[in-house]
């Protein structure tokens, strides 16, 4: 019997591997999709400098100071503009993220303790939150230095009389003293650490770290569901029932089909993991056994669900339609597409009813948080639970003909 089961399973794999469409949807599309969406949502990295521009009208030296501080920031790149109109136009065309306009009397105002407005030109069409925060910090730094200088000048005047000529020398010296508390970094600061596997690299569940496990999970589910659709076709054509005339028991046929789905899922998962590890640099390898537990239990769960779907639909067209609908929507809800933190609280609770949630959550614990096996036992348990229930149900309800 075992040999027969394997023969049927082998048949499932051979049929799938001969189908060019399957190749597209099981391997090529997931790879393209993972890379595309991963690179879109990757956190801003050193290679990806944010272009900004400055129009500096300041007649004194402190507009240049602003520029100098900006140049020290490693995430931005300063692009030349010819005029303020040019700057506004480039912002609207999203050629630059934001533009900064420093007013004519900037330095003069600083020295006279008069507030200056630095205009930050942004566009509705670009997300400038990160860069805005950065610019505000530089503005704050200059503001503090100038306040300190003005305050020093004011106070020294209450003790001794200072000549006009000495004033500007004192002001500039005070500015330098004040600014030293920002060099090389602010002397009072926030020490921010992500509790991820590599704190120095601050790996987040974003970009490739999410898209690699997230879309592997989604496309494995889709792949098994499609294989289920192919089985519906066999049922309609009667080849499934014809098998019953051979000395092969019902149970052997059912388990053979399921084994085929399961092996298909495993092979597909493995290819997508290897791609993620070696082409996208995702840390899949920290706990191979943990990854294996999730992969096996998730594959079993989708095998059960895929067979169950095949039992309920009548035609392979229906099966195909539901395969796409169910796998896409549950993956979005389950957190394959984006970090689940952005969803409303109740959607986060709904997510826990999808197998994708438990798979992605488990894989994230291993990949990003760098945890060991014990942390994913609960995920493994729940996925196995889904697997056992759906497999038993689909065996009980299995149909050989319409």
């Amino acid at each position: 019997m075992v040999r027969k089961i394997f023969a049927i399973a082998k048949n499932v794999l051979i049929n799938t591997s001969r189908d060019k469409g399957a190749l597209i949807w099981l391997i090529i599309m997931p790879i393209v999709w993972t890379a595309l969406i991963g690179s879109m949502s990757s956190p801003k990295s050193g290679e990806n400098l944010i272009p900004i521009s400055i129009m500096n009208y300041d007649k004194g030296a402190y507009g240049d100071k602003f520029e100098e501080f900006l140049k020290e920031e490693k995430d931005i790149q300063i692009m030349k503009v010819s005029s303020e109109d040019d700057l506004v136009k480039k912002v609207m065309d999203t050629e630059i993220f934001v533009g900064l306009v420093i007013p004519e009397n900037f330095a003069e105002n600083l020295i006279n303790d008069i507030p200056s407005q630095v205009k930050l030109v942004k566009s509705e069409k670009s997300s400038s939150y990160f860069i805005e925060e950065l610019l505000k910090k530089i503005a704050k730094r200059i503001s503090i230095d100038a306040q300190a200088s003005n305050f020093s000048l004011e106070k020294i005047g209450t003790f001794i009389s200072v000549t006009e000529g000495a004033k500007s020398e004192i002001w500039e010296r005070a500015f330098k003293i004040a600014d030293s508390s920002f060099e090389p970094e602010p002397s009072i600061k926030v020490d921010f650490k992500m509790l991820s596997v590599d704190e120095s690299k601050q790996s987040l569940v974003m970009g490739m770290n999410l898209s690699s496990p997230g879309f592997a999970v989604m496309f494995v589910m889709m792949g098994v569901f499609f294989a289920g659709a192919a089985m519906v076709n066999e049922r309609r054509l009667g080849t499934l029932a014809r098998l019953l005339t051979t000395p092969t028991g019902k149970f052997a046929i059912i388990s053979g089909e399921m084994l085929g789905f399961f092996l298909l899922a495993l092979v597909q998962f493995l290819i997508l993991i290897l791609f993620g590890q070696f082409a996208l640099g995702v840390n899949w390898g920290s706990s191979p056994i943990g990854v294996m537990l999730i992969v096996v239990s998730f594959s079993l769960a989708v095998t059960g669900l895929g067979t169950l779907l095949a039992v309920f639909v009548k035609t392979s067209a229906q099966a195909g339609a539901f395969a796409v609908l169910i796998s896409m929507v549950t993956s979005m809800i389950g957190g394959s597409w984006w970090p689940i933190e952005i969803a409303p609280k109740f959607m986060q609770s709904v997510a826990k009813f999808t197998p994708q949630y438990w798979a992605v959550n488990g894989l994230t614990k291993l990949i990003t948080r760098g945890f060991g096996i014990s942390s994913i036992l609960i995920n493994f348990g729940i996925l196995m639970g889904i697997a056992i229930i759906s497999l038993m149900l689909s065996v009980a309800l299995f149909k050989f003909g319409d």
Partner: protein
Amino acid sequence: MRKVLSIAFKDLKLRTRDFYAFIMLLVMPLVLIFFLGIIFKPMWTSKPFIIDVGIIDKDNDEISKILINDVFSSENLKDMLNLTYLNSDEEAKEEINSGKLAAVVILRSGFSDAVIKGENASIVVLGDPEQSIKSGVIKNIVDYFTIEVLRRRTIIETVSDILAPYSSINPQEIQRLIPQWLKEIEDKEDIVIVNPTTASKNIKSIPPMDYYAVGMGVMYLLFATNAGAETIFEERRLKTYDRLKTTPVSDKNLFVGKILGIFFVALFQFLLIFLFTTLVYRVNWGSSITGLIALAFSSVLAFSGFSTLFASIAKSEQQIGNLGPALAMIFGFLGGGMWPVFTFPSWMNLVSRFTPNRWAIDGFLKLMEQNAKFYEVLPQCIVLLAMAGLFFLVGTSRLRKRGT
């Protein structure tokens, strides 16, 4: 002409009876619009989310008290932050790792002391890598707090440094004055103010449901036109073409009828999506009906053209069936149907301009966000029509060469 139309309408009729088409071309986009709409809702509203944050206060001194009592419990923040007090780093890590807290703020013992003595000082913020947005918000709040503390210290230090060399000024006098100076600078406003202005005219932000009605509506046009292109092959396989040839219908009529059929199916699909999203999801498609019609027609034409070209390149029905949806998804994503293009890296933004989706979505969004008039979406319509023209030209000539 009647013959052409009847062939086209026959295709439309066949589609409406097809269960697979019903799910893929109508149910699927509507379900996706619905879920995307509710999932992304918090990102759109002004009070985005409640953040669960932990605090360990080992400092338990002047400055840590200010952070906890005056900053975290301030009017602006107290509704957004859900504070939990913890005792140890181990506890903090456990709470974050189990996903219960987005971030933990740790004030080490001696923090206030170090600040007052002028030593380097820091506040530790631990973040959850799975909640990077929320933990980023917490980091920013604490960042503002530390810079405010630093401001006071810097000013006092600078004054002391400047006054120190003068022998006529008594150092004890300076020490005595510091508390008074601190009071003086407490409420000093920033003198460099960053004033953000938006470089475009009144754009209103639209809810995610509206955005995705456009994004998905446009993306699914390509699903529909590809499905139509598949029928060109299907008729060849089922030999219905050969049968049609026995009737007095010319090859040319047959051909035009098939392409018109593709156009009708997509237009009908768009109409249904438009009606459903307007009536059930309360999506506001803007106020210019002519603009809407012009954009819908040119988008449908562009996608029909694309699918005709696709059919002329594809080798088999299976190829269209398999590659078609994949292309539709990739185009949908690149054109900005899933994430707004402003979140793209610049190379992707450039590539996206080669998809019809980008121009169609830009046009529809103009109507919705800026209440644009008909003439304002003409550039988008023209690009779409130019694409349509190009696709049809190459596609039909290739198909004709191959013969029906």
